[in-house]
């Protein structure tokens, strides 16, 4: 039985580790912390596997939702809120870097193409939040637009992304 357990967890690891690590790395930047999050998330997946129901969403969405949230929560808990505000106020977000990241490092051509199909503001709102871990008020500050606008763009952007990717 123990061997069966190991084999099953090895499958989880082999199938998810790279995506979990990549998701955490985007948000956290720090390699060591990202590895910690990866390990935490995979163990959490393993521990709470009984909660996963394939009828209500894919395993990938379940695992990566967990990974993203864990990474974002870690970023937020570590940075004092003042720190975050300062960062949001003064940061000149290197958009070139964002688009570089998106253009050069996304493995999946389709994801890249679908991101390109978004309006600029939609794309920036979605990628700043998902890949950089900024909250919507921070994104609004960074982009110099109203908070309400950012919320709308995030939702519209995700809808367009979903439709472009052909998610059911």
């Amino acid at each position, binding site marked *: 039985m123990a061997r069966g357990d190991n084999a099953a967890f090895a499958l989880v690891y082999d199938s998810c580790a*790279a995506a979990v690590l990549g998701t955490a790395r985007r948000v956290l930047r720090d390699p060591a912390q990202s590895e910690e999050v990866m390990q935490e998330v995979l163990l959490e997946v393993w521990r709470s596997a009984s909660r996963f129901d394939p009828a209500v969403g894919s395993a990938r969405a379940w695992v990566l939702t967990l990974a993203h949230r864990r990474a974002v929560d870690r970023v937020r808990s570590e940075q004092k809120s003042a720190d975050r505000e300062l960062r949001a106020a003064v940061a000149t977000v290197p958009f070139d870097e964002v688009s570089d990241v998106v253009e050069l490092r996304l493995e999946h051509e389709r994801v890249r193409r679908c991101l390109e199909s978004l309006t600029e503001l939609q794309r920036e709102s979605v990628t700043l939040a998902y890949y950089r871990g900024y909250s919507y008020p921070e994104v609004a500050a960074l982009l110099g637009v109203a908070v309400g606008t950012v919320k709308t763009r995030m939702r519209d952007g995700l809808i367009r992304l979903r439709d472009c990717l052909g998610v059911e």
Partner: protein
Amino acid sequence: MMRRRTAALHTLLGAYVLDAVPPEDRVAFERHLCGCLACREEVRGMREATARLGAAAAVEPRPELRERTLLAATRLRQAPPAAAELSAPPSGLSRWLPGRHAARLRWSGWLAVTAAVAAVFAAAAIGLGFHLGSMQNRLSAADQRDHEIAMVLGATDAVRLTADVRTGGTATVVMSHRAGSLVFIARRLSALPASRGYELWLMGPSGERPAGMLPPSHAGMSGPIVVRDLRAGDQVAVTVEPAAGSPQPTSAPILSVGLGG
């Protein structure tokens, strides 16, 4: 007032899925989500989309992390969660999504499938909510395969074997004699020209039986595929063949693993 509040929450949907809402908004939104079927459906679709963003950012972990994490999982299994935890209400992450009316998602690739299968296996192993009946209600080719994989992984006599592939990469076989089946996965196989593929064989005392082509690799992984009808004295082998497969091996095996029994 109530309506205005609800409308305000609706606009948070995208930000919520992106984990871009401050904690107090998150709590309010999740409360709202419980009573809003349309919202849950929208969240479900968006989560599949953000998961693609995450998967697209995949980076290969340092090799030593694998053993370390596997070891940690072993320790975790030895200390099962407390009873209180086991009976806790299901996490919002997995349950805010409509159940039986939702179209089953097609996963693109092995990632989700293997995770799901391992998850199902884990559920069976801890004896929680694993109902064969509900699995069999969702029969499709992919489900059938998931089910078979789960049966092999969950078998009490499951054995895991790992071997190097002569031309590069490693193969893992999880086999159950009782189920008469094995699950085969390969990692980091050498790339082949489009006209060629890796074909699996069962090689026994009475000759070779083709056991299927390995699907193209995805992020360095090929498979998992299920091989059925194991017989005594079989070896599982891999050869390089024309992409459409051959009825008989036309080249020397680059992997051959004795299955014992």
